[in-house]
């Protein structure tokens, strides 16, 4: 069953390669995403009931537990939303002559490969293979970032590949050191095997392991967009097509964060406390939130603003993992889900806005609520949600993280954390809310007639908005169970 997760994208890729007509391309992309999500739902059920899923064939590399299952669910849900949204988005781009029609096929093939590499990263238990898959995500999405092939997109793609590849090379050095720390302890069959490393964590060499953690944090932190290694992120997110931005932000960053979380669990288990990893993670997390706050306050491009907001939220997750108490881990994992849903909703609605107004500049846009009634409303509510206003779900997880910080009696960390969150809120309010007021200019109104463009995509937006709103007040039992199991895996209580 689990192998279908890896097989379906490959079949889809072959079908996309063979089938030329546009309609069939759309159909293959959406139906493969639906199938993947159905399989993931069944697997989630099994993981909750029986714990980890592992197969003995193929060297026992396939491995899914609650932690990877949770992130995999996010990947596939956002993947489906992006696939449905892409139909209308691409048709509109072709109609506006921004993309030649044959490029749709290339787009879908790259997108399916991108999803495949992310599934691979989450379903292997060998840290080396995980590294390979995470590097492959960069390579698969490089052309998606540079898809428009103009000066800006090429610059973003070049920076993206160079910075992320070098960062991830540093992570490989960390993984080699992780391997070194286990020399003489693990059998050759279980080299770099996460479960074996975790089980024998107490006997690994602490000093090498600490060095390994620093390299892995810097390396995967680059990919997760943590400051000061975040410089590729705003460029890549603002230049990529909107459904891809949604996937980069909502999905890719989580996959990199997953690598950090796995390593943190080993190192903390080895050290017997979280003070070493905690200090590093909290420092880098606070730095990310602060960097994002500064750039959000002075931002003129709304897609870049959303990208900086992603850096902020990755920082929040890093702080939550750094605190390392049951409450903070729960909050951090929940925040991953909440951030992904909210941020992809925002990027998708930003895609609609961009197609309507044909600009990314905030000051050129007025009266969204009139021209785009549904997308505009979703965007407005999404901004409130991402800034952490109740009743939306981001508030719930940010609240539990803040509570966890204060429970840990790290008063200063908590105060700085809250102050920065307030600054981000103010930044979003000051810069973005002017897009909603005012009348659309008469000339613009002639060009941009009122009404939605991407009907199917807009339905996705409404579904996401419903999930984001309901998630703030009610957490389904399955999700709660999955998060609690994942929390147990990280803390080592299962």
């Amino acid at each position, binding site marked *: 069953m689990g192998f279908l997760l890896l097989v379906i994208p490959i079949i889809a890729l072959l079908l996309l390669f063979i089938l030329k007509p546009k309609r069939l391309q759309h159909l293959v992309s959406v139906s493969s995403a639906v199938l993947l999500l159905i399989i993931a739902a069944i697997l989630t059920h099994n993981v909750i009931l029986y714990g980890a899923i592992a197969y003995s064939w193929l060297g026992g590399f396939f491995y899914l537990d609650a932690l990877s299952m949770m992130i995999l669910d996010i990947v596939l849900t956002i993947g489906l939303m992006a696939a449905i949204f892409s139909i209308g988005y691409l048709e509109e781009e072709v109609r506006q002559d921004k993309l030649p029609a044959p490029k749709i096929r290339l787009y879908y093939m790259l997108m399916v490969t991108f999803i495949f590499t992310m599934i691979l990263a989450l379903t292997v238990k060998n840290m080396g293979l995980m590294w390979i898959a995470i590097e492959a995500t960069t390579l698969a999405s490089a052309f998606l970032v540079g898809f428009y092939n103009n000066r*800006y997109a090429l610059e973003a793609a070049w920076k993206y590949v160079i910075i992320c590849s070098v960062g991830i090379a540093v992570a490989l050095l960390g993984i080699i050191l992780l391997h070194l720390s286990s020399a003489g302890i693990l059998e050759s069959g279980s080299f770099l095997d996460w479960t074996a490393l975790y089980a024998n964590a107490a006997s690994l060499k602490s000093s090498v392991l600490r060095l390994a953690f620093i390299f892995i944090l810097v390396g995967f932190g680059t990919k997760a967009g943590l400051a000061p290694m975040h410089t590729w992120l705003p460029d890549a997110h603002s230049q990529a097509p909107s459904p891809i931005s949604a996937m980069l932000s909502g999905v890719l960053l989580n996959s990199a964060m997953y690598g950090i979380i796995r390593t943190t669990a080993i190192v903390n288990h080895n050290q017997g406390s979280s003070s070493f990893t905690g200090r590093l993670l909290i420092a880098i997390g606070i730095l990310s939130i602060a960097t994002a706050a500064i750039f959000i306050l002075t931002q003129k491009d709304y897609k870049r603003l959303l990208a900086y907001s992603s850096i902020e939220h990755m920082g929040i997750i890093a702080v939550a993992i750094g605190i390392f108490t049951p409450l903070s881990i729960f909050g951090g994992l929940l925040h991953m889900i909440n951030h992904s849903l909210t941020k992809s909703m925002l990027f998708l609605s930003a895609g609609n806005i961009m197609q309507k107004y044909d600009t990314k500049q905030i000051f050129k846009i007025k009266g969204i609520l009139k021209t785009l009634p549904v997308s505009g409303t979703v965007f407005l509510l999404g901004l409130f949600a991402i800034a952490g206003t109740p009743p939306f779900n981001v508030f719930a997880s940010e609240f539990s993280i803040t509570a966890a910080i204060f429970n840990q009696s790290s008063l200063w960390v908590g105060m700085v954390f809250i102050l920065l969150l307030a600054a981000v809120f103010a930044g979003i309010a000051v810069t973005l809310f002017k897009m909603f007021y005012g009348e659309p200019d008469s000339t613009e109104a002639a060009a941009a007639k009122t009404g939605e463009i991407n009907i199917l995509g807009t339905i996705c937006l409404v579904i996401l908005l419903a999930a984001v709103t309901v998630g703030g007040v009610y957490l389904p039992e399955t999700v709660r169970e999955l998060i609690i199991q994942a929390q147990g895996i990280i803390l080592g209580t299962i």
Partner: protein
Amino acid sequence: MSENLSETLSVLILLSSFVLMANKRISSYIKSFRIQSMLIALAAGVMGVRSLLDEGRWDILIVCILIVVLKVIYIPGLLNRTYASVRYRVEKDFILNIPILVLVCCGLVVFSYFTLASIDGSSQGMSNMQLVNSISVIWIGLFFMISRKKALGQIIGFLVIENGLYITAMLATQGMPFIVDLGIFIDLVTFVLIMGMLTFRINDQFDSIDTDQLNNLKG
């Protein structure tokens, strides 16, 4: 005997990255990279023969053949073709002058010596000096990327980092699991192909492969 040989090889690999740093022309970068890859293939060959005789393992020898095919023949050939088609008027390419760059590289070696000397347990398996040499290759590769402006220089810097990582893994831990090595090769080839294509496109759009021109996105 073979202990001495791998000691010598690790010093030679370090030396080849110094040679790379002292190069002024893009075409000589590719030559230096090829020489370094040959040395790495030799080191892998020595280790492969030893592990075949001692434990009957074939995987390191297969990796050695892969290194020869990919890093000595295929990738340098690909880079040469890319270089031939985007040839820029001035092919000299460096920011600081060469003696300063080489001095900084010496500093990097000393830096990695002191980082690793303070870590106990890093001398597990092989002698500590080989680990210092190979980790220095990684930092020199990184520094090479910073010190060169042309797109091709940056690609080669990344390949040198990858070489350094490979040699670190081999010397420190007797090689990664075979499947991991294989995956890393696949990633590496894809990286070179993608970067080659991006270099073409940047050359088309900007009429040069100078990465200093990639500065339009800010803030």
